[in-house]
Each structure stands twice: as structure tokens, then as C-alpha cells.
């Protein structure tokens, strides 16, 4: 799920306002957008990209490894499943508010065809200096720069802030992986963490989580055996219980998904959990220094006073 320059990208819903705006941004940044999909405008060219009627046809004519969806919720399931059946390997679902039973059908189809879904309700994937897929400000130099810190985030806006703080501290990123704000995701925090653990270009991982679901707890379980330094920030400490905090996945019911549960799980796995996003870069830098001397950093260390 780290996107590369060589990945051929198909944009579903390329002719809409957002599809147009972000396709231009992706092309300008270096993403290899090879096709757009719109069955009514097949044969035309839009922002310099050829349009095909279906993903299957696009793959046949120009190839395609990654698909990204600018598709409204009511049409998202059909678009996703047709991309999956066409053989797309990675499907980035930006759409928010897709009915949950449609999301389950998308995941079932992806499982059957070996497609990895990122999202729904993700802001996308960025490999700074190389390419991006989605709706992230990859092209804003104060936010992203190439480097060796991997960032996993359920939120686009908060993930942007975290990358900005890292960049400001001189810490570039190997990858930004927006996993999405929905409760049922194709790629979980743990999946993304496993990938960053294996990635040779990543020296440290930052987890930007939030209340709701048990994804951070599950990631903590994997983190126990990781040696790369890890820092986390979990949003929602001040959120009232029982309320959906904007994201469909950000809700605490009883004890499940609470801030305390996530923080305890991560800290007991050796992940440094900071109180504000501004503390992340300091903690990552401390973790990297400790890593160079071969010692695992303890929770609480590396936090500014």
C-alpha cells in the first residue's frame, strides 16, 4: 500500500469537480494516471487522460494497478466491485457515508479477487517526492517531504497536521497511509503497521488514531514485536461517550474503543503515546536516536516536559 511512480492509476469519477481537481494535482505531482472511467464519455480525453467506459476496458487498453474512487455513496458499491472484478490490485475508496452493508459487499468482493481496499472514507496515500493517490496536499512543501518516517492515519486533516509537524522538525516521510475514518476498513492500522515494519525505506512509524473500533489495540498487539521506534497520538480524549464524533468509526460505546483502552494497549507494547500532535516529532527524533544506540525507548521517554 505504498504507492510508487511505476503504479498505473485509474480514476473512477474523473470528470466530476473533485475528480478533475485532484487528478490534475496527482498528475502534476508525478502520479502515473493512465485512465479515467465514465461510461457516458468513453473515447474522450479529460485533463489529458483517456476515458474508458469500464475499469476492465481501461486495464485491457492501458493497464492499471491502482484505482481511486471519486464516486458518491449510492454508486460506490457497484463502482468498487466492478474495479475489483476487473483485476485492480489496490483500490482507494475516498467516499464517505457508504451504507455499511454495501461496504461489507465491497470487502467480500475484494477478498474473493485478492484486491486490497484502502478505506472507505480515506484521504488517500502519499509517497513524498514520488506520487500520491487521493485528496492529500502532497504538493504543499511545508506538509510533506521525502524521508524515512511512515505515518498511518484514520483522519486526513489530522494526518496532514502530523506530517507538517514532522517536516518542520526535519523528519521526512517514507509514506503516508490514510486508512480511513469508517468502522469497517479494508486496511487496518495493524495491516499498515505490518507493512511499515517490513518496508526497508521506513525507520520509524507514527500511528495517528482516534477513539472507536479496536484497531489501535490490535495494532498494539503487533507492535510488541517491532523494533522500529513507534509514536502514537490518539484523538478523542475529550470526546463525550456514546456520540459519533464526525467519523462513523469514532464512537465509544461502554469501554470498547475508549481513549484509555487504546493508550494503555499501545504504551504496554512500547509505543510512545503523546498528548498533543506537536509532541510527535520530538518523540520520533528521540526514538530514532535511541534506535541508533540499539536500545528500545521506554514509554514516557522522549516526551517534552
Amino acid at each position, binding site marked *: 500500500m505504498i504507492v510508487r511512480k511505476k503504479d498505473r492509476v485509474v480514476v473512477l469519477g474523473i470528470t466530476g469537480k473533485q475528480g478533475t481537481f485532484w487528478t490534475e494535482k496527482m498528475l502534476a505531482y508525478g502520479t502515473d494516471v493512465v485512465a479515467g472511467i465514465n461510461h457516458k464519455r468513453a473515447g474522450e480525453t479529460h485533463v489529458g487522460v483517456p476515458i474508458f467506459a469500464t475499469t476492465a476496458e481501461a486495464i485491457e487498453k492501458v493497464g492499471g494497478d491502482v484505482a481511486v474512487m471519486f464516486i458518491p455513496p449510492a454508486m460506490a458499491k457497484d463502482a468498487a466491485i466492478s474495479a475489483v472484478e476487473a483485476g485492480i490490485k489496490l483500490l482507494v475508496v475516498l467516499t464517505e457515508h457508504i*451504507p455499511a452493508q454495501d461496504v461489507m459487499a465491497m470487502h467480500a468482493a475484494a477478498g474473493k479477487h485478492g484486491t486490497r481496499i484502502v478505506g472507505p472514507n480515506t484521504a488517500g496515500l502519499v509517497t513524498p517526492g514520488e506520487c500520491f493517490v487521493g485528496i492529500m496536499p502532497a504538493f504543499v512543501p511545508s506538509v510533506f517531504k521525502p524521508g524515512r518516517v511512515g505515518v498511518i492515519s484514520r483522519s486526513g486533516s489530522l494526518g496532514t497536521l502530523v506530517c507538517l509537524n514532522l517536516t518542520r522538525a526535519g523528519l521526512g516521510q517514507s509514506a503516508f497511509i490514510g486508512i480511513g475514518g469508517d468502522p469497517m476498513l479494508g486496511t487496518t492500522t495493524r495491516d499498515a503497521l505490518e507493512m511499515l515494519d517490513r518496508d526497508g525505506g521506513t525507520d520509524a512509524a507514527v500511528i495517528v488514531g482516534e477513539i472507536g473500533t479496536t484497531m489501535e489495540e490490535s495494532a498494539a498487539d503487533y507492535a510488541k514485536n517491532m523494533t522500529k521506534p513507534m509514536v502514537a497520538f490518539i*484523538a478523542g*480524549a475529550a470526546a463525550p461517550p456514546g456520540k459519533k464524533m464526525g467519523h*462513523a468509526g469514532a464512537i465509544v460505546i461502554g469501554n470498547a474503543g475508549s481513549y484509555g483502552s487504546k493508550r494503555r494497549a499501545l504504551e504496554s507494547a512500547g509505543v510512545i503515546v503523546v498528548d498533543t*500532535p506537536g509532541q510527535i516529532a520530538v518523540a520520533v527524533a528521540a526514538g530514532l536516536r535511541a534506535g541508533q544506540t540499539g536500545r528500545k525507548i521506554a514509554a514516557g521517554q522522549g516526551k517534552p516536559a
Partner: protein
Amino acid sequence: MNFTEYAAKTMILTAAGIPVPRGILCTSATEASVAAANIGPCVIKAQVPTGKRGKAGGIKLAASPDEAKKVAREMLGMRIGDYTVERLLVEEQAEIVREFYAAVLHDSTARKPLILFSSEGGMDIEDVAAQKPQAIRRLLVDVDSKPSSAEIAQMLQGLKLGAAEEQIARIVARLYAAYRGHDAELLEVNPLALLVDGRVVALDCKFVLDDAAIFRQGEIAKSGAPAAMTALERHAAEAGLKLIQLDGNVGVLANGAGLTMTTMDVIRHFGGRPANFLEIGGEAYTKSEIALDLVLSNPGVKSLVINFCGAFARTDVMADGVVKAWHKLKPKIPVFFSIHGTGEVEAIRLVRSELGIEPYDLMEDAIQAAVKAAQ
């Protein structure tokens, strides 16, 4: 979207062929007494879309029309949770032999529908899970198919359901079909009861409709219970914005759920109290003008944090809305900005030139200043 028991029973269960007790919806004590005369010994149940009605005094027996009238008079107007009781369900008393639990819900980890059945009903399923886990059975279903009779029979095996098993199996299959057909987030029958006469009947029902599916469940959604909201929260909802009013004094305007929650967290981290959650992320980022109006309408607000970090949401568009609203509303309270990401150069220029305010570089600094100003 939540539903009352009566709406769930009539629109979902009865429509699916799942038996429920005979009942009449009433809005006055007189109606309740007439209903009781018709039904006989009855149970009177407050129709509010919230749990723990029994404990709150919202479920009572009545043996006669006079008693029904008295109970109804006490119950109508009562507050249960965030709701006022305006409707009562007068239902025939069930002679219960045994109580079960059945539900269909999303399993987020498996990303599949999950059927839950328990041979112990009438209590919270969490309590059953803690005290008698062996009573609970789970069946994951592929969303594109449905549970086969063999799968349901296997799930129920060993629970010693006796003669009731066949009826229960049929009800479970119908419950799943109703969950799929009506885009339920949760469809729960607790208790599902075996009666003296041998029938298995749904005595209570909780139905939660997936908010994201309301566009294709219009008929059902019309019967949904309005969420308990403050006047300000309702105004926001009417404008298509999600606002949660809190008891603090630092107003929050940020884009995206994650950044908004974080802004609240950092306010608390510096010893302050957030006044609201208000998200203008996603497509809502163009609504910053109305959003600011809403935040400032909260009488408790003493200072304001405006924290933008643009990705999809363009900070120049959001800042433009804020500037317009500011000129119109002319608020007297201090405001503290932090602006980064897509469109930041133009956004910062706008705030400087139009409001004469210098945004803070770090959100922590802007928030700390706002907390101080509110004290």
C-alpha cells in the same frame, strides 16, 4: 437513526412475518384505558428510543382499564434519558415460559453480518456474555448470501430449545432478511419469548437504521425517532452540519473529524473546556460561514479557536467563509487561528488583511492562548 419499539415491531418485525404481541399505540390516558378494555390485562410501555426503560419506570402492568388509565397518566410526560414520553404501547400480557435473545448486527472486524443468539434472554447481552458465555452462539454470514437452514440449525444445536427450535430457526432467518432488506445497523429482539401457548413471540425490538442508507430507506426513515438534540444542535443539523454542544467555554471550528477532536483534546490538555464539536470536513468545508455563526450562538463561548489543516478541504475557501461571517456577526470575543495545508498562503493573507489577526504557527500555541483568554 433510532426507532421506538412500536415502530420497529410494526414496520420491521410484523412486515417480516415475526410474531409480536397484540398492541395498540396510545397518546392519552383515555386511549390507554380504551385499549386495555379491548386487550384485557396489559403491559404499558413508554415509547422512547432508548434502553433501560424498565428501570426508569417506563414499563408497567395494568390489570384493568382503570389501572391502565392511572399508569398511563403517570407515564405520559415522564423523562427517560434524553426523551419525554409522549406515546405508550398498550400490549397484551405475555405468559412467558422461557426468554431468548436474537440479533443481527455488523461485525466490524470480520466485515460481515453477525447473527447472535442466546438461550438466555431478557437481560443485557453483555451481562450474558460475562456470566454465561456458553449460552451465546454466533454465526457470521456472507453479506451476499443468507444463512442456510443447516447453518441456523447448527448454531442452535445444544441449546435445548425443544419444541420451540423450529419457530426460532424461522424467526432467525426472517430477522436476517429484515436486517438486509432495511439496512439495519442493529436489529435486536430481546426478549424473544416462548409463551405458555407454545408460540415464540418478539416481546421487544430494537432497530437502528444505518444513517448512510437513509437515502434508500425513505419510507422506514419517516418513522424514525428524532435524535435528542439541543436547539443549537438541531440548527446545525438543519444546515447539514454535525455539532455536539458541550459544557465548556472555548469554541471550536476546525476541519475534519480528527483535527476537530484533537483541537478539543488540546484545549483540555491546557486546562480549558471545549464548548463544542463541530466538523466542517469533507464536502462541508464550504460551510464555514454558517458554521461560525453556530459556534458563536452558543452562549457559553468566551474565546474561539479556528484550526484549519487543509487536505481535501481548502483553507482559503474556509477562511473566506470565516471572514464573511466575522464581518456580518461582528463578534466581541477573541479568536485564535492556526492555518496549514491546501490553500494556506491565501487563507493566511485573508485573515491578516481582512481581520487584522496574525494566525499562530502551531495549533498548540493558538489553543493555549484561547484557553487563557476564556478564563
